[in-house]
C-alpha cells in the first residue's frame, strides 16, 4: 500500500462520544433518512419535475461529515445531495420547496433537486454534471487559502465520478497548491447501473487519491463514527494548512439510482446483505449495546424528526410558485 493511503480502523475500545454527539449523530441520520423517504413520496405524488436520486443507505457519510464541518466551510455535492445539504444545516422546508419548484426554495424554484445551493450555508451547489463540483470546491479552497480564512472545502462525489477528467484535474490542483479540501468519495459500488468494478481496476478508490500524493483513507461509510473520525482529522489537517485529504467512504445505496430504476443490475440478496449493515440500524444497535441512549430516546428522536419532516413537507406543498417573470432574473 502506498504511504499516502491507509485504511481507517475504528478503535472500538477507546471510542467515546458524549451524549451530545451521540444525539447529534442520531438526529442527523434520522433527519436525512426521513427526508429521503418523504422525497420518494413526493416524487410518487407527481409533485416534482426531473428525476429523484435517493440517498437512502448512505446517510452516515453526509451525517458524519456534517458533524465535523463548520458553518463557514464550503461544500459541493451532486444530484444525490439533499443529505449533505441537511448535514450542512439546510432547512427541510426550503429543500422540499426547491424540489417542488417553489418560490421559497433555496433557489427560488429555479434550480431544482439537482442544484441545491445556499450561499449562507456555504453550500456552493449540487451539480448535475458528474465530477464538475470537484474543481469548483478546489477553487473555493483557493480563495480560503489566499484570504487566510480557515474555511475548508468539502466536496462529495461518487465512485463513478473518479473516472472523469474533472476529478483528475481537480485533485491535482488541490495537491499542487496544497489547498484545504476534503474529497469525499462515496463509493456505493455503482455508477448508475454499472458496477464500479467494471469501470476501474482499483481495489480501493483511495488509490486514486494517493496517486496525487494526497493523504487518502478508506473508511466504513456506513459507520457514522468512523466517518466522523476520519473527517475530523481531514478537516483539522486542512485547517492547519496541511492540504487536502481524500476519503473513500465505502457504502451502498439501498434503493435505485433514481426513482424508477429497475435495479436489474444487482441481486436482491446483495441489497439485503447491505441492508443488515445500514447506518441507522447499525448506530441504533450500538447505542443500545453500549447503553449510550435508551430505546425510548432514540425512538422519540425518530418520531420528532418524522413529524418535523412531515410538517415541512406539508408547508412546502402549500408554498407559492415563483412569478413567471422570474425566468428573466439572475441570468447575468
Amino acid at each position, binding site marked *: 500500500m502506498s504511504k499516502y493511503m491507509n485504511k481507517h480502523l475504528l478503535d472500538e475500545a477507546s471510542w467515546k462520544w458524549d451524549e451530545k454527539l451521540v444525539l447529534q449523530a442520531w438526529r442527523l441520520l434520522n433527519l436525512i433518512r426521513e427526508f429521503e423517504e418523504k422525497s420518494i413520496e413526493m416524487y410518487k405524488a407527481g409533485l*416534482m*419535475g*426531473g*428525476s429523484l436520486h435517493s440517498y437512502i443507505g448512505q446517510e452516515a457519510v453526509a451525517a458524519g461529515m456534517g458533524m465535523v464541518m463548520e458553518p463557514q466551510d464550503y461544500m459541493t455535492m451532486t444530484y444525490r445531495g439533499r443529505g449533505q445539504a441537511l448535514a450542512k444545516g439546510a432547512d427541510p422546508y426550503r429543500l422540499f420547496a426547491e424540489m417542488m*419548484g*417553489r418560490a421559497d426554495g433555496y*433557489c427560488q*424554484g*429555479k*434550480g*431544482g*433537486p*439537482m*442544484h441545491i445551493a445556499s450561499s449562507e450555508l456555504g453550500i456552493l451547489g449540487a*451539480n*448535475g*454534471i*458528474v*465530477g*464538475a463540483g470537484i474543481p469548483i470546491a478546489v477553487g473555493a479552497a483557493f480563495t480560503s487559502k489566499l484570504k487566510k480564512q480557515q474555511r475548508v472545502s468539502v466536496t462529495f462525489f461518487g465512485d*463513478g*465520478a473518479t*473516472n*472523469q*477528467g*474533472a476529478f483528475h484535474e481537480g485533485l491535482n490542483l488541490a495537491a499542487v497548491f496544497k489547498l484545504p479540501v476534503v474529497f469525499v468519495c462515496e463509493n456505493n459500488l455503482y*455508477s*448508475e*447501473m*454499472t458496477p464500479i468494478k*467494471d*469501470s*476501474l481496476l482499483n481495489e480501493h478508490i483511495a488509490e486514486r487519491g494517493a496517486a496525487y500524493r494526497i493523504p487518502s483513507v478508506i473508511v466504513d461509510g456506513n459507520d457514522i463514527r468512523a466517518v466522523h473520525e476520519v473527517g475530523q482529522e481531514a478537516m483539522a489537517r486542512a485547517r492547519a494548512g496541511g492540504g487536502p485529504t481524500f476519503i473513500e467512504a465505502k457504502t451502498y445505496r439501498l434503493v435505485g439510482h433514481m426513482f424508477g430504476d*429497475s435495479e*436489474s*443490475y444487482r441481486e436482491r440478496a446483495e441489497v439485503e446483505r447491505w441492508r443488515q449493515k445500514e447506518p441507522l440500524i447499525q448506530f441504533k444497535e450500538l447505542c443500545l449495546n453500549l447503553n449510550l441512549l435508551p430505546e425510548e430516546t432514540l425512538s422519540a428522536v425518530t418520531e420528532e424528526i418524522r413529524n418535523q419532516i412531515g410538517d415541512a413537507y406539508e408547508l412546502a406543498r402549500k408554498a407559492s*410558485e*415563483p412569478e*413567471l417573470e*422570474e*425566468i*428573466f432574473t439572475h*441570468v447575468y
Partner: protein
Amino acid sequence: MSTDRLISYSEAINEALQEEMRRDADIVLMGEDIGSYGGVFKVTKGLYSEFGAERVIDTPISETGFIGAGVGAAMTGLIPIIEIMWIDFTLVALDQIVNQAAKLKYMSGGQTSIPLVIRTQGGGGRGNGAQHSQSLETIFAHIPGLKVVAPSTPYDAKGLLKTAVREGSPVIFIEHKMLYNQKGHVPLESYTIPLGQSDVKRRGKDVTLVSLSRMVLFSLEAAELLSQEGIEVEVIDLRTLVPLDLAAVIQSVKQTHRVVIVHEATGAYGWGAEISARIQEEAFDELDAPIVRVTAEDTPVPYNLNLEKEMLPQVKDIVNAIRKSIQ
C-alpha cells in the same frame, strides 16, 4: 407502406441500431449503462443480449475518453455509435468532437475518415433543470466537419439514423427526451432517409414554417388551430441542420412569402438566425413581411415546470408568431 405499424420513437431508433448492427459487423455501440441495462432511456434495449459485450460497450463515465476512443476506432475500421446520455454532457468532451472528430479528415489531407455517430438527447419539458435540458444543436451546426440531425418522428428517426451510420463522417444525432414515447408509423420494410432532405409535414399556402425535432409537433398543433381560421401553414421539418435543405425552404417561401422559424434552442445566435439570414440572402424580393423567430428565451432552463414552459416555446407562441407574420 404495406406493413405499416405504430411504434415509438425510441423503438424506431432501437430498430435502426439493430438492423445496422446486423448488416455491418464493424458497428459498435459505446456509452454509459447501454449494455445489459439497455440505456437509461431504454434505446439500446436488447442489443447487448443480441450482440454481446464486445459490440455493446458499457463505458466508465468519461466522455472525453470514450468519444476520443470512438474517434480512434473510427479511424481504424470500426463504426462507433456513441450514446451521450444527455446532450449537456457533450460539453465535457467537446474537444474530441470539435477539434478532433470534425477536423481529422481535413487536417490529414483526406487520409482519414471518421465514420462516427454520436447519439444524444436534448431539450426540455421534464423539469430536468438547466444542466439537463439544453438544445445545443447550433453549436455543432456551426462547426465544419460535423453533420447534425434532429428527427421529429419515429419514421424519420429510424431512416435518418440508418443513413447517419453509413455516412462515413461524424454525425451528431440529436434525439428529444419528450419524443421517446411518441408513436408513429414505421414500415416493417427497411428504408433510409438521406441527410439534407427536409420534409413537408403539412402543406399550406399562407406561411412557411421551418422547424425540427419536438417543435415540429408543436408547430403542427399551431397549424391545426390556425387552419380552423382559414390560415394554412406549410410546416417544413428540416430534419438536418447540416446538410441544410435550403432549396426546399426557398421554394416554399416563393409560394407563401412569409416565414416563421421555430426552435427550442435559445434565440440569440441560434440556428434560426442562419435560416433567416439565408432566406433573405436568397429570396429577398420574395419576402412580404419580416421573418419571425419563435425560440426559447435567452436564459438557462429553469427547473419549475411553469417557468420552464414560460421559457420554452409553446404552441400559443407559435400561433401568435404566425398571426404576426401574416398581419
